[in-house]
């Protein structure tokens, strides 16, 4: 009897987890972008544009499985904050954080619109063109301090003029660098 109750409870918890994960995944896809990991071979290009200096703060909005954030934490002496709203992917990030202790890497289960980006030196994201809109740009403009860098993977920010467009060849995806 007790075993059955435990089994049913565990099944319920598991189903609830699947439901919340699925719901948060759909929400994340609609609100910012589907999970399309930045290509590993593009990391060099991204961080060349970022030009991170020791002690700076690097934000990744919608960090997916945490690949870019982990790379930043491992290779540059900077503080990295990754925001992710999809529960399943957030848990993957937390798992990766276990191997990167030392306080340089932090993942938050949070909607990016609820995070104040005032302390960021570099903000990186991959968002769909329709969400890189006025609302999103206004948030960046209002919160980021002068000199802060914005790096957008693949898609341009609405109505903003990029400082650099990095696209070495036809095959490569463009990376846009903006500066406040």
């Amino acid at each position, binding site marked *: 009897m007790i075993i059955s109750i435990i089994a049913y409870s565990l099944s319920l918890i598991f189903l609830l987890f699947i439901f919340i994960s699925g719901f948060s995944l759909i929400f994340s896809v609609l609100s910012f972008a589907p999970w399309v990991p930045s*290509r*590993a071979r593009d990391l060099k290009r991204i961080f060349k544009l970022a030009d991170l200096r020791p002690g700076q703060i690097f934000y990744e909005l919608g960090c997916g499985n945490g690949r870019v954030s982990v790379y930043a934490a*491992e290779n540059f002496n900077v503080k990295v904050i990754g925001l992710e709203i999809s529960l399943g992917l957030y848990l993957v990030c937390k798992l990766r954080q276990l*191997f*990167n202790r030392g306080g340089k890497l932090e993942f938050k289960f949070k909607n990016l619109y609820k995070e104040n980006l005032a302390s960021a030196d570099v903000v990186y994201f991959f968002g769909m063109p329709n969400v890189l809109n006025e609302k999103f740009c206004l948030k960046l403009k209002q919160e980021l301090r002068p000199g802060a860098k914005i790096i957008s993977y693949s898609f341009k920010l609405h109505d903003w003029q990029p400082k650099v467009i990095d696209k070495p060849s036809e095959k490569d995806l463009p990376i846009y660098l903006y500066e406040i």
Partner: protein
Amino acid sequence: MALVVFKNWLIKYWHWLLLGLMAIIFFIATASFNYFTQSADFVKWLSPDESANYNFTKLYAQECRLMFFEKYNLLADNILHPRSIRSDFGWLKPVSFLGIILIYGKIASLTTYKIIPFLTPFFAAIGIIFYYLLIKEIFGKRNAIMSALILSVFPPYIYYSARSMFHNVLFIVLLAISLYFACASVKNKKTATDINKIKGKAVNILPNLFAGLSGAFLGLTIITRTSELIWLIPIWLIIWLFNIKKFGLVKLIIFIACLLFAITPAMYWNKILYQSYWRGGYNEMNQSILNIAGAGSGILKNGAVNSAAIKNGLIEIKNNVFHFGWQPYKSLKMLYFYFAKMFYWIFWPAFLGFLLLFSRIKKWRTKHYVYLIALFTAAAILIAYYGSWDFHDNPDPRSRTIGNSYTRYWLPIYLGAIPLAVIFLVKLSNIFKRKILVYGLRILMISIIFFISIRFVLVGSDEGLIKSAQKQLAVRTEYEQILNLTEARAVIVTQYHDKLLFPARKVIVGLFDDPNMIKEYAILAKYLPVYYYNFTFPQKDIDYLNNKKLPDFDLKIEAFAEVTKDFMLYKLSLREETIATVKQSEE
């Protein structure tokens, strides 16, 4: 009550407890070598092979690439690269097999690259457990537990687990796992059929799954050290022929499919790096494969009409398979030095154990025949193949130490011999009638083996782990000093320190004995600061270089800084008049 349950559990599973404990201790002990000799900003290796494997594994883990681009190689005829790395049109690529890079790289990409130095100790600890499982299938639980305990202190197994970017331990562990699953797939397990009944029909899911796992792990084994196919093919054929009926067609198809699946990543990268699915980084090996294929097709074409063609073809195949010669006497001599003499405490008991086993040939079961035939086939090929080579990993060619490559290439022989040694040890302990004396003697013998083995691997030779750790700690100061003295884009010509300075600096492995190389140094000196780091030259050698050898290339050499008691950093620069010409032409 709880105490009784615990006692019963302990009686039933004591060997698992012991094995788990041994595996954990083994992992901590072998991982501590890298833990204490490396740090976040100093991950360096004692050999160029390890260094290359690490750098490419890290690159693959972080950026999913297996090439660095060094543009100055386009000017300098591809000489800018350390040992174990090659340059093709400026692209620096691995020379070694890709297995360890891909396996560790994938694991590190999912976690962090910081765990790379500790993955071999981890796999080696897992290997102890699979070795136990494998030996248990063949010689039973008693032999298996004693063999696993001996393996956990066996010097080359510890040594090459601590020197963690060599691929030999990973190779042997993957092979042991593959062999275990192969054994499990042909074992008659009623549970496997009973629990998987679908509509009253027995479906053998577990044996098929084991066959698939065996194939997958064999695939990983092959990509880790492809050159070992020379003996892997015969032994797997032997294993299969003895079990052809039990294995059947379905399991064979699953086995081959999983094997092919496991080697696909390496084939994909071979194609990208070396322009062919079957080619690797070793040019000599690629040439041998082409020669063997050519000789084989020559035999098929002309063999029917010309017996001389068959003979020539076979000689060609033999010369290519035994690329480094065929010297049976030398092979036996090496076997004596690197097994009978170096690991006498395993060799002689194993020899006597084999005689004991042989005396009971009438009681042998198929698995014993398979084990011994496969072991002797593998041993014969490995001894003939590697025994004919000349390895001088240690700078002193007369020294016979654990660091010489024979010990890592012959790991399969050592591991195969351990259960035979245990047969002898068990027989020896059985001279007593009382159980307590029998167990007492076994514990005593294992303890003696523990003591001899640990002593040997730690301080047994110039390349013992303690000496190696001391060397590693000492070079750190040297490394930091050189980095402080040279520019970030500097080129350093060196004979031994490439493994230390790459990738922080561009390196060339060279001396002043080849005019073609000096010509390239001169070209590079026009664009980059070039240094030479090696043993301190006597003044007369410096004068000779400056007055006789280097003027032809418009170069001069001058002492830059003494880094250690024996080693000096020299600056190689263009002569004044050449600099003026270069400036003029630039203007």
